[in-house]
């Protein structure tokens, strides 16, 4: 009884059977699309790390994908299409900004759509990446990124100099980028 499995997709509440329901107004429809785009926004944010770029890219996804959704598409397809568009838009973003080809970004962008939540998954993934680093590298990245320390504060904390911390930060980021996680 309690182990009854639930459908993976949302099950909207509705009126009694046979009752005629007025279709929602246009603005309501936009709300529906927007709900889906919240997930896309979080996904994109987790890759670009700042709001302004995340907003621009989410907007691009919306304008590209929403008008192309076809009638009768299942939920998985709708979400899948939005994520596929998001990955493509992200690929374009990085390739424009850094001159990277999309294949170079394969590991980062072409991963399967996160199963347990785009943003949680992302935070968890970062935690696992940091775990793979040497103590010093992990510490410098934790202090700088997770605790928001300035270089000077990190240097004091690590009994080092600002210059040395800068170099260590770069090496730690390079090392973190090389970490490959299973799944």
């Amino acid at each position: 009884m309690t182990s009854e499995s639930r459908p993976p997709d949302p099950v909207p509440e509705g009126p009694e059977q046979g009752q005629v329901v007025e279709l929602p107004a246009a603005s309501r429809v936009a709300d529906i699309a927007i709900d889906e785009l919240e997930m896309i926004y979080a996904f994109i944010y987790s890759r670009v790390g700042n709001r302004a770029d995340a907003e621009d890219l989410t907007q691009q996804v919306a304008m590209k994908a929403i008008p192309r959704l076809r009638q009768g598409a299942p939920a998985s397809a709708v979400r899948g299409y939005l994520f596929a568009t998001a990955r493509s838009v992200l690929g374009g973003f990085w390739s424009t900004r850094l001159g990277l080809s999309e294949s170079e970004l394969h590991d980062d962008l072409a991963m399967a759509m996160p199963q347990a939540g785009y943003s949680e998954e992302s935070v968890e993934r970062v935690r696992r990446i940091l775990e793979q680093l040497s103590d010093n590298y992990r510490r410098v990245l934790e202090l700088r990124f997770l605790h928001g320390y300035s270089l000077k504060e990190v240097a004091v904390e690590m009994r080092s100099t600002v210059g040395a911390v800068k170099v260590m930060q770069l090496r730690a980021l390079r090392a973190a980028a090389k970490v490959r996680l299973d799944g």
Partner: protein
Amino acid sequence: MGERPENRVDRIVSGLLHGRRLRLRGGDAEEKEAVVMAARLAAARQGPQRMSPAFRKRLVKQLEAATPPESWMTRRAALVAGLGVVAGAVGGGLLGRALEGSGSQPPATAGHVVRPTNGRWVDVGALADFTPGQARIVKAGAVGAFVTRDGDSVSAVSSICSDLPCELWWDSSQHTLVCPCHNRTFTAQGSSIGTYRLPSLDVVQVRVRDGRVEVLGV
């Protein structure tokens, strides 16, 4: 020109940590892996993100402006169908369902009641410790629940989202339970809130005995 790699990367890191847009210069691509990683770390620091209300509003307007109203209907049908609703006649006249009312609270629809095999009542605290109207997370062995007090009575719902296997958190400012995995929200009684609804949260059995709150756990 001649910028040292560590300075180059720190300039980008500092920008990210100040919430600024990624502004890259020629040559920054040499440290592309480090830059991509810095962006991910900066995002992780912020935790799960939602669109700002202003951006959300702007996006709605742009979407509406981008396509004629009639195609919204098509999109609606697509989205509604995509979200698991039977759109179209079934048998003798079940029509597409409205996903959202007029902004009013959705009717309380009870989820499944959690009935653990060999369940036992677990003391989770004094009733007086539960603030009325505020859901509080408790653990009854393997059962996690949000308990809400209403006067002298209590109710409880599962702490796990009904759609994704993620633990909810209580947003005390909005009085909602929030799923961090996809930003869906529920009332303290477990009803889904939002544009389209998820199944209600499972109901966890709870009682008050001698001023103590007990949850049926395992």
